[in-house]
């Protein structure tokens, strides 16, 4: 009903699950969107004077050169962010509801430019345009709107402490927040980071991934357009070892939030420890189990498991990359999954029929092919795919391995590509134990009709997110984050605000306390 009424309709989040898009509703994209912003801030070149190429992964060709931020640029950005955060600054004095309004306006501007942003995202990242348009950008808009609403609802408490005192808490922003994001969902990760940081009144120095800087820089122009005060958001394209490292070890950055590999997550935590003990939140890797019980709806489980792994070219930290299937249905599940993977359409990301585009760059491409070789070598059974899918660009065939054992490299390490591992199990207790036998703890899913099994697994699995009879269901309202090596802290939801807040306890002596 509502969907007919609102002209700029947002698709339901669950709509992403079947990769079925109504092509009629999506405007025909330009495969060569013009790049308007490739500088460090909206109009400035890097202090370093260096630049780097950003590549179209579908062709391997250079899209354009982008100014490369270095340590000197980070220093400059931190100074700007610190100034914007100064006590008495416009940003600090702004009504919380007006911070919310600015975020709402940013959401409106992004919604207005959905088609262009989706084109740019697809060009730079390789993800299918239909997905950029109907999943990534709408989720960005929803995330920002959601966080906007929190701005004036992030309430402190008054606390009945003992004695003749009046005690209350203020939820204050932490200060200058460094944010380092990944290339797999460039726009969405940017929104996940900016939304809570700005809703709670922080200022931001953000380094975007060198593979995919373009949409973030365009959003920077929108941030300026909607009227955020200068210095509140600073966006720096650059490399991890230079710009990223400068943020992580900066003495005047109060908090760092990082999304990326577990390996780099260690470095960030170390950098904080050896600099100013800045607060650290991390969203890292996963090797998430997806458990299919024999009583599950087979068609649904096959489709969802396919989506759980292959969505976004397999480049998801929460990818369901260990599919545990109960022995009695193992063969049928395998057969149907292979059939589904074979029918997956790989190709030009700007084509509406395409379900899978290229991997993001040559490094990832080679790494994934390396994992596929290890799978073959270590004795897993290659059921389909297993090789390169096109003459140029970084396309990889949808690949399924059967008879995977828990000790194999492909069952232990994060592949971050379109490679599905199917493992067999017998009992509930066994599968929970095996599912937990990993250093990761990001997500998990179970497919079953049995309410007891669903609860047993959902409480037994050590993971930050558990999906029951569904996968990859994200709402801006629900927290996301990892146990164990998968991270530290939570993003989204009310929980996400905690990571951007300092709690101040104010206690005042009163002559006489009364209840």
């Amino acid at each position, binding site marked *: *009903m*509502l969907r007919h*009424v*609102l002209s700029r309709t*947002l698709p*339901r989040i669950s709509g992403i699950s079947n990769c079925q898009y109504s092509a009629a509703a999506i405007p025909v994209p330009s495969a060569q969107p013009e790049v308007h912003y490739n500088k460090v801030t909206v109009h400035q070149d890097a202090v370093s004077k260096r630049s780097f190429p950003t590549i179209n992964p579908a062709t391997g060709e250079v899209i354009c050169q982008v100014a490369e931020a270095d340590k000197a640029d980070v220093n400059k950005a931190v100074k700007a962010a610190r100034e914007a955060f100064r006590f008495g600054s416009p940003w600090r004095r702004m009504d*919380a*509801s007006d911070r*919310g*309004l600015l975020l*709402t306006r940013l959401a409106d501007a992004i919604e207005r430019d959905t088609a262009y942003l989706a084109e740019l995202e697809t060009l730079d990242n390789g993800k299918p345009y239909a997905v950029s348009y109907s999943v990534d950008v709408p989720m960005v808009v*929803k995330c920002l*709107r*959601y966080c*906007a*609403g*929190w*701005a*004036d*609802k992030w*309430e402190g408490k008054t606390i009945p402490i003992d004695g003749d005192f*009046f005690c209350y808490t203020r939820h204050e922003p932490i200060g200058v927040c460094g944010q380092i994001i990944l290339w797999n969902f460039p726009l969405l990760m940017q929104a996940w980071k900016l939304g809570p940081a700005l809703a709670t009144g922080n200022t931001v120095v953000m380094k975007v991934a060198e593979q995919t800087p373009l949409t973030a820089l365009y959003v920077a122009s929108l941030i300026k357009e909607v009227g955020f005060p200068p210095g509140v958001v600073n966006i720096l394209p650059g490399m991890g070892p230079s710009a990223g490292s400068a943020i992580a070890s900066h003495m005047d950055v109060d908090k760092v939030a990082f999304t990326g590999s577990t390996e780099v997550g260690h470095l960030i935590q170390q950098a904080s420890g050896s600099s100013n003990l800045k607060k650290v939140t991390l969203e890292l890797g996963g090797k998430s189990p997806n458990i299919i019980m024999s009583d599950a709806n087979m068609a649904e489980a096959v489709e969802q498991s396919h989506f759980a792994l292959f969505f976004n070219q397999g480049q998801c930290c929460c990818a369901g990359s260990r599919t545990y299937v109960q022995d009695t249905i193992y063969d049928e599940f395998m057969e149907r999954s292979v059939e589904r993977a074979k029918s997956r359409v790989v190709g030009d990301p700007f084509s509406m029929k395409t379900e899978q585009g290229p991997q993001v760059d040559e490094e990832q491409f080679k790494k994934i092919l390396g994992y596929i070789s290890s799978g073959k070598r270590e004795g897993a059974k290659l059921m389909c795919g297993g090789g390169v899918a096109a003459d140029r660009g970084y396309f990889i065939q949808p690949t399924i391995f059967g008879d995977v054992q828990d000790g194999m490299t492909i069952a232990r390490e994060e592949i971050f590509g379109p490679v599905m591992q199917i493992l067999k199990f017998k009992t509930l207790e066994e599968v929970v134990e095996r599912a937990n036998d990993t250093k990761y703890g990001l997500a998990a899913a179970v497919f079953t009709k049995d*309410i*007891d099994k669903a*609860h*047993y697994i959902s*409480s*037994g699995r050590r993971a930050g997110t558990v999906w029951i009879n569904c996968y990859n269901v994200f*709402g*801006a*309202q629900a927290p996301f984050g990892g146990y164990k090596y998968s991270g530290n802290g939570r993003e989204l939801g*009310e929980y996400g605000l905690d990571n951007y807040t300092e709690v101040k306890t104010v206690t*005042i002596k*009163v*002559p*006489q*306390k*009364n209840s």
Partner: protein
Amino acid sequence: MSVVFTSLWQDGSQEQRNKLRFLLTASVLLLCLYVIWGDQIFIDNEWHESCSGRKMPVHNPATGDLLCEVEEADTEDVDKAVRSARTAFQLGSPWRCMDASDRGLLLNRLADLVERDRLRLATLEALDSGKIFLMAYFVDLMATVKTLRYYGGWADKVQGKTIPVDGEYFTYTRHEPIGVCGQIIPWNFPVMMFAWKIAPALCCGNTVIIKPAEQTPLTALHMACLIKEAGFPPGVVNVLPGYGPTAGNAIAHHMDIDKIAFTGSTAVGKLVQKAAGDSNLKRVTLELGGKNPNIVFADCDLEYAVEQAHSGLFFNQGQCCLAGSRVFVEDSIYEEFVCRSAEKARNKVLGNPLVPGVDQGPQIDQKQFDKILELIESGKREGATLECGGGPWDRNSLFIQPTVFSNVTDDMRIAKEEIFGPVQQIMRFHSVNEVIQRANATHYGLAAGVFTNDIDKALTVSSALQAGMVWVNCYNAMSTQCPFGGFKMSGNGRELGEYALQEYTEVKAVTIKISQKNS
């Protein structure tokens, strides 16, 4: 609030004054052109004539002119509206199946539309209620937009909990809407009250039947147009102009209305509570009268306190449940305070609410006008000192002179009863304990003010006062984030802020037996 306006007009730059002039000119132009968008009953997103065939007149209190006639809802129309609201609330309906974030989006769209029509709504409000146009524009409409946006943000943040119960169970709560909500609002802030009522109700997913006051139905009916335009499904909001004893009574007694929210007098509040008891035990929230103390200590900033106490009483022609109508002033500054307050009141400019520079319009209707004059007379009779004002401003209209009484004692009627008009009572006090005791000696408990620079006095008095809102060194400082409601006979429940959400929510605890519990 009025300070903002006054300073905009008096101390503002030429540019700001020009902007205000422009707005006024535009509004007068609009006045010539304006068409009242809604003059019927709004049910199921459609306009209806009344079942009885009756209409009611709507007047401009500043001139006494008839503005238009509006269809008058009665019991049958209420029944029709309840059926529509019930259908909209059915399990599986578009409204019930809608994502919470989309409910929020609809409220945000409505806020956008109100912002678009702000000038028109403010004009309509000033014409219909007699309030100062610039106040309507800057205060009422601003608050309306902010309230809608604020609750737009809450829609997908009304969160249940999962609860660690004893035993092998998994327990969670769902925060569900209550259902069909009847809402009855007064005439003093027509469009703002409309937003205060519908926004939290819709945010939580309820459906609404709202009766605006018979004196001021026009902005509510315009809001109905905007609700339809924003895209709320039919039946979610139904707007029924009508009278209290007929339509209001039918809502309060209805067996298929799940909750009622009423803002108005304490006398009618009692009727509403009784009606709920007599019918289906519907949930009741009430925002009623007040006789609010405003306590001024000698150590405060005197000029500022005089100004705040003045606007705390005279704002909106004194027609505020929040009005600071008992000003307690410490004896050492009493004479000075009275003198300055009377001077302020004497300087008030009465006149056409659409004209800039005018800061007091007419009272809402003859009944209120007569009641206020009667209370003024009682003040004179009972021995209070009349410092200024004390009668009608002009024989043939509903304007009343700004009136200040000093030497008021606690037992006088003007110190006990809600006057709801431009009449300020100033009393004298000696000590903190005395003033706390006297301030609390009332059956009301809505708001209170304290003016002092001493942190101990501020905290002592603010915790001792029996009132839902206490302002320290300010008055009428309201915002949509902050809860609003009364102790004692000033009401029941809270509006605005997060607290309002629980007034529109049923909590359902779901407990599931599980095979094995783990922490």
